[in-house]
């Protein structure tokens, strides 16, 4: 069942619904549509995510979830298939209005918006939410788009630049908010859907502690919050359906358990006592054979493709890998099937990737830069030839870094170790603590170069489904910082940087998509990235949920739409 399996789902028309259980029934269509209100949804996850603070979060699941208790300026449409990739106004009446060649963006807020305590939401609250998210030394987790694109003129944020006004954001009246950018950017509406644009009342902002009491602007508010253990959401009576065309708010509340046993989550979903694993990464390997093996269970499973690439960065700054021939040898010698197996096989792991851009992102093209050999098991002859050309005919030694707590990355490292050994490239496995992987180890240029980290496992999901949302943070060499923390571990080619600038500035969508596609190919040619798999997962639908469908923007079930039977 290989080969472009996921792409067909995108062609489905949105809004279609079905009630017959079948494999992949909620992928691209709505399974079990219903408008019934009531009930409490049970969510669980095995390990905590960064934060529930809208200004301090960068996890897809968190952005998906945040829509329950906050509203941002714009949002992805709530719908199956490609619908979910489209933006629409949320707090704002509609999408932003660009002016000044895309350097200024203006949004009009809806009437009658209120916080959970009844105070009206104004454009000032939105400005404050964005401003505080700039404080990356306090709210460290969120994306840095606003830091990078707003014309801040030295403004650091409401904590650091106390008493100053954010010069990049104007609020001419309570319902209007204007953003000034430092360069033209056509995709600002994507920025506007980041949870950081959710309004935050200044008086209630407790900085890093705000996560303990997020003030709701959405249909649900926090009833309780216990760090690391879970929280409960209940209806926010100040939310007004009339101000919100996107949310149906079917359940009466949500119980979110954090730190549950991962295998148990699978079991509970299978037997119906739990609704959703909010991690959205699919069932655990233990349940996989069961789910795929038993027809009745398989009929309850979906196999969505997410806009995520699991790949390996090849460090062009260490040892023989400085020579592109040696990097080519790695590309040729890698056995892509074991890479895929390491991630869970064709269904649970993903499709073998040929380039960076996942198929569902506009601009995608099927590349064939480096031969993957017969059955994708690697082209050993070419690899050997490349090694010869590199002057290392007998191979060489280098290290492969991965995140210690990620078994799949560990398996991948083992898989690469095996497959590269076939041409004499010896890999030593180097696990690093997940939390510091980017900030201190693989993500820190001085560290990775000094410690001879030749290969580094990496994984990147689109912030949203377009070329910028996917590629900008991993191919632009200028995001690499000496202090570490960048997701781009190996791509720093001036020519590519220029191409990125061109793509950003391009206002024509089709041309822009093509430009991103070209960047993809160009990066591949550098042989600094060994693509692994475009992630897919096998997820199981709970028996009691309604309105189940995969939101393509997040690559997982849409939490907002679900209801209880």
């Amino acid at each position, binding site marked *: 069942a290989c080969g472009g399996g996921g792409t067909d789902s995108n062609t489905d028309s949105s809004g279609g619904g079905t009630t017959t259980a079948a494999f992949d029934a909620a992928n691209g269509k709505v399974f079990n549509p219903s408008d019934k209100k009531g009930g409490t949804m049970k969510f*669980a996850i*095995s390990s905590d995510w960064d934060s529930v603070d809208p200004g301090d979060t960068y996890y897809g699941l968190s952005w998906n979830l945040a829509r329950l208790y906050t509203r941002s300026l714009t949002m992805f449409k709530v719908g199956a298939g490609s619908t979910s990739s489209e933006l629409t106004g949320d707090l704002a009446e509609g999408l932003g209005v660009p002016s000044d060649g895309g350097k200024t963006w203006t949004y009009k807020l809806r009437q009658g918006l209120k916080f959970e305590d009844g105070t009206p939401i104004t454009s000032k609250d939105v400005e404050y939410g964005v401003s505080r998210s700039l*404080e*990356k*030394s*306090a*709210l*460290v987790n969120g994306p*840095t788009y606003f*830091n990078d694109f707003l014309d801040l003129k030295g403004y*650091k*944020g409401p*904590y*650091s630049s106390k008493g100053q006004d954010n010069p990049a954001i104007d609020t001419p009246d309570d319902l209007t908010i204007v953003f000034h950018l430092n360069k033209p950017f056509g995709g600002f509406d994507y920025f506007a859907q980041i949870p950081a644009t959710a309004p935050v009342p200044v008086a209630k902002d407790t*900085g*890093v*502690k705000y996560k303990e009491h997020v003030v709701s602007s959405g249909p649900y508010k926090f009833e309780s919050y216990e*760090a*690391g*253990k879970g929280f409960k959401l209940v209806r926010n009576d100040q939310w007004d359906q009339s101000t919100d065309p996107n949310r149906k708010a079917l359940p009466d509340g949500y119980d979110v*358990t954090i*730190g*549950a*046993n991962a*295998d*148990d989550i699978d*079991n509970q979903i299978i*037997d119906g006592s739990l609704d959703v694993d909010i991690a959205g990464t699919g069932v655990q390997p*233990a349940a996989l054979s069961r789910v795929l093996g038993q027809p009745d269970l398989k009929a309850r499973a979906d196999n969505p493709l997410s806009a995520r690439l699991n790949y390996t960065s090849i460090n062009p700054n260490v040892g023989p890998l400085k020579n592109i021939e040696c990097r080519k040898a790695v590309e040729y010698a890698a056995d892509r099937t074991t890479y895929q197996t390491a991630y869970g096989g064709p269904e649970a792991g993903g499709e073998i990737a040929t380039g960076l851009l996942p198929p569902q992102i506009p601009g995608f093209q099927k590349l064939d830069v480096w031969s993957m050999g017969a059955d994708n098991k690697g082209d050993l002859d070419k690899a050997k030839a490349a090694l010869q050309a590199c002057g290392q005919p007998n191979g060489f030694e280098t290290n492969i870094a991965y995140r*210690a*707590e990620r078994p799949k990355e560990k398996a991948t490292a083992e898989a690469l170790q095996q497959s590269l050994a076939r041409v004499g490239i010896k890999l030593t496995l180097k696990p690093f*603590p*997940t*939390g*510091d992987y980017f*900030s*201190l180890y693989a993500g*820190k240029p001085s*560290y990775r170069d*000094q410690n001879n980290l030749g290969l580094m496992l990496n994984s990147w999901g689109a912030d949203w489904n377009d070329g910028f949302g996917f590629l900008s943070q991993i191919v632009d060499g200028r995001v690499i*910082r*000496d*202090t*570490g*923390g*960048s997701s781009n571990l190996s791509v720093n080619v001036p020519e590519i940087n220029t191409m990125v600038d061109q793509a950003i500035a391009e206002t024509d969508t089709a041309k822009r998509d093509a430009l991103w596609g070209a960047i993809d190919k160009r990066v591949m040619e550098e042989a600094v990235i060994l693509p692994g798999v475009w992630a897919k997962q096998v997820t199981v639908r709970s028996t009691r949920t309604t309105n189940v469908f995969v939101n393509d923007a997040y690559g997982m079930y849409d939490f907002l739409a679900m209801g209880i039977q």
Partner: protein
Amino acid sequence: MVAYIIRRLFGAVLTLVVVSMITFGIFYLVPRWAGGTAESLASRYVGRTANAQQVADAAHGLGLDKPFFVQYWDWLQAIFVGRDFTGVGPAPVHCPAPCLGYSFIGRNPVLPDILDRLPVTASLAFGAAIIWLIFGVSTGVLSALKRGSIFDRAAMGVALGGVSLPIFWTGLVSLVIFSYGLHWTKPGGAYTPIEVNPGEWAYSLLLPWITLALLFSAAYARLTRAGMLETMGEDYIRTARAKGLRERTVVTKHGLRAALTPIATIFGLDVGLLLGGAVLTESTFSLPGIGKYAIDAINTNDMPKVMGFVIFSAGFVVIANLIVDVVYAVIDPRVRLA
């Protein structure tokens, strides 16, 4: 006795200071062996947009650039007077006394976090302790009384097996069978506090209790048996029989009473150790207790948490030691504490 307790408390505090110093030393030194500098250590706390100056400020504000003893002193002092950190985040961060450290990854002081998890670990430890005391001791006593019988051999065989089983394996196997397979018990992870729902509480801890108790029951059965065999051979048992006491009285009042004394000691220490974090059990059953906290802290490389944990659990052991000694003196009139 009072003087003794005071002296021991004094010793306990000293022990903790030394433990903390060693721990601190190791966590201070090892990252530096690995090539860490004050700046590189600080850089994890400053976020992704920080520039070199901000990193340097953070390193300074956290005191990472100070010599070892100054840093240790700062840490120690914080326990009594609290501490302010600067350079990380726009405002100074205050960690109120008693400050066992402040986690910049979790953005909170360590102690309240640990205390928050204590009920889980305590529930686990005490619940299991009750089970293993009942099972272990009664099996041990019966075995000793029926020495050489089939029961004795079987029980001791099982006990030897029990102490030879790795707890994480027993835990996994029982999880797979009883939780995933038969759905009899909860697999852990979702702990319900006793005050919320005692039934749920017990239900959620059932499997960890049994698993932990299995290991300890086995050990205690062996200990009790050995102790009983020893005391039942004592002269005073013969005296008790010569007085014409009923065998049951002889066994319980004279034999068991004496045999249990050393077991009480070990029991105290075991519970003390467990309260300081049943690491393997908690991670096998994903119980959000102190042990899991420690593992998580280690996995996220959150050194202030690890430090705080080490001191906290060492404190339990030290206090358990002290209590055991005092209790011993109460149980055994021959022991005079001076």
